[in-house]
């Protein structure tokens, strides 16, 4: 572990439904060191995913500061935020969210289209990412030709292909059977231990949380432990 990589200071977030304000997060303070693997647990509606979205820069806090790798995420414009996400964040969704019309290789290649890498360099990185997740032999397979576990591994390869420092995973095992879930957790653990990726994972699953080095709990928008 090293210095603070993610710093959350007095973050408050609420949503508006018509004229009613619905508070979701209350004065969240959280520091995450570089290379840490943290699980974020809590009941439905506790604000876990909202906090993850704020860290990913796909949503903005109502107040408070969010620093990721020294960057004030909340202060970036939409355009700069999109560019920042492409360089710094790898996002893993619960339902994989692969493009059904693209095969595994093309899905993983997608984020690299935003870089200046040429075709050869992109191929090299995609093959490396798919090798890490153990799907080098499934490059030409489309999502509907893969199992849920394999789809999630492709999604993880897509998340790491740009070599981001921070990986955010939203219930990565929530849609998987027990064995596939264990495989995915092994993979995330490996990314953390071998490649020193900082990982923040939202989960309901205590067994998945056990793989993390630290677990924090959210309840009704407040960090309780």
């Amino acid at each position, binding site marked *: 572990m090293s210095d603070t990589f993610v710093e959350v200071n007095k973050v408050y977030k609420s949503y508006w439904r018509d004229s009613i304000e619905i508070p979701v997060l209350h004065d969240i303070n959280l520091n995450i060191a570089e290379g840490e693997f943290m699980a974020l647990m809590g009941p*439905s*509606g*506790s*604000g*876990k*995913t*909202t906090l993850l*979205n704020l860290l*990913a820069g*796909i*949503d903005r806090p109502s107040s408070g500061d969010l620093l990721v790798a020294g960057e004030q995420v909340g202060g970036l414009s*939409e*355009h700069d935020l*999109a*560019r920042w*996400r*492409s*360089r710094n964040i790898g*996002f893993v*969704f619960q339902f994989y*969210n692969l*493009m*059904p*019309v*693209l095969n595994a*290789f*093309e899905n993983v*290649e*997608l*984020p690299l*289209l*935003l870089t200046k890498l040429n075709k050869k360099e992109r191929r090299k990185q995609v093959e490396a990412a798919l090798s890490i997740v153990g799907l080098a032999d499934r490059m030409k397979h489309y999502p509907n030709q893969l199992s849920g576990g394999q789809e999630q591994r492709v999604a993880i390869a*897509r998340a790491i292909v740009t070599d981001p420092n921070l990986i955010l995973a*939203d219930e990565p095992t929530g849609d998987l059977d027990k064995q596939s879930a264990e495989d995915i957790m092994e993979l995330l653990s490996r990314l953390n231990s071998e490649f020193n990726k900082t990982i923040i994972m*939202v989960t309901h699953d205590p067994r998945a949380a056990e793989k993390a080095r630290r677990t924090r709990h959210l309840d009704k928008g407040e960090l309780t432990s």
Partner: protein
Amino acid sequence: MKVFKLISRNTTRHPLRSFLTVLGLAIAVMAFAVIRTTISAWYAGAQASSPNRLVVINRVSLVFTLPLADREKIEKVDGVTGISWAQWFGGIYVDPKNFFAQFAVDPGTYFKLYPEYIIPPDQMETFQKERNAVIVGRALADRFGWSVGDPIRLTGTIYPGNWDFVIRGIYTGAKEGTDESQFFMHFNYLDERMKQETPGRAGQVGSFIVRIADPSQAAQVSDRIDALFKNSLAETKTQTEEAFQLSFVAMAGTIVTGLRIISILVIAIILLVLANTMAMTARERISEYAVMKTLGFSPFHIVGLIFGESLFIAALGGTLGILITFPIAGLIKVAMGAFFPIFKIHPVTLAVGFVSALFVGLLAAIFPAVKAVRTSIVDGLRIID
């Protein structure tokens, strides 16, 4: 993996929907092109008219005739350099459905006023010598498989009885828009028989065709001619050939206006068809666009994908529409050739149809693109936790 690849694969994601949309666009583009071609065909006579020809008809109506004797007065009018005359015959060839234009003309003067009818000299010579000789257009000859020397019998409707002719010449058009579907007989052949059977109808012509030296003097020459016959039993109405042809279009003015409106409605319909498809497409892919935004794609990229897909479908539909326009127009030409002798698809019409399809493609993508851009990533992913 390129963006166009993603666009093309997205297009074929729902093959039936895409096929029906492309087919709808194709039929609309074809309908637009055919309607516009039909409107152009209506104006073909006016477009092919000569500025130095005037047409003199009875002021009351085209169906009333003028005395042939008026010729002598008209040809002396200042500015007139040539005159001939024609009478609508209106006979039936074998079957009433075999309609084509038949005129009794003066063989010695008529074709001198129409240099756009190219007739081989030997055929013209024979035509002028034989009383029952006729000259027909190349398109008309091809339509019925006629050739020089063939005997033709027409059954008169305006001039009762059977009328036997022999084809002695086939003319071709000097210009692209020249009508090659007409049938010209000797006026004297008609007139002499009228003298025998119904003398009251002899010596009457439907119209005089007048050549003038200076097209800019058309109005003045017309006034001089009409002044000659003012308060006579057969007052005249003299007009340029173009105005004369347009008067036929004016008779069907409501139909032409209707066709113009329909051609615009066709474009509106394809807009609705494509807009509906694009709206469904964008709605289904909102979560995918949200994922792409999460990966770092900007709203510009998303807009590009939506517009690209819409334009791709529009281009496919436009291209297919152009391709099917030719056979459909060919069928219409066969069926309506007698009424529209010049039924030609102009490249500009096809270009307008294709560009309209692309324009519709752009319009159809606007609303879905705006919606996709405005939808936040969070809403797109439908995260409620």
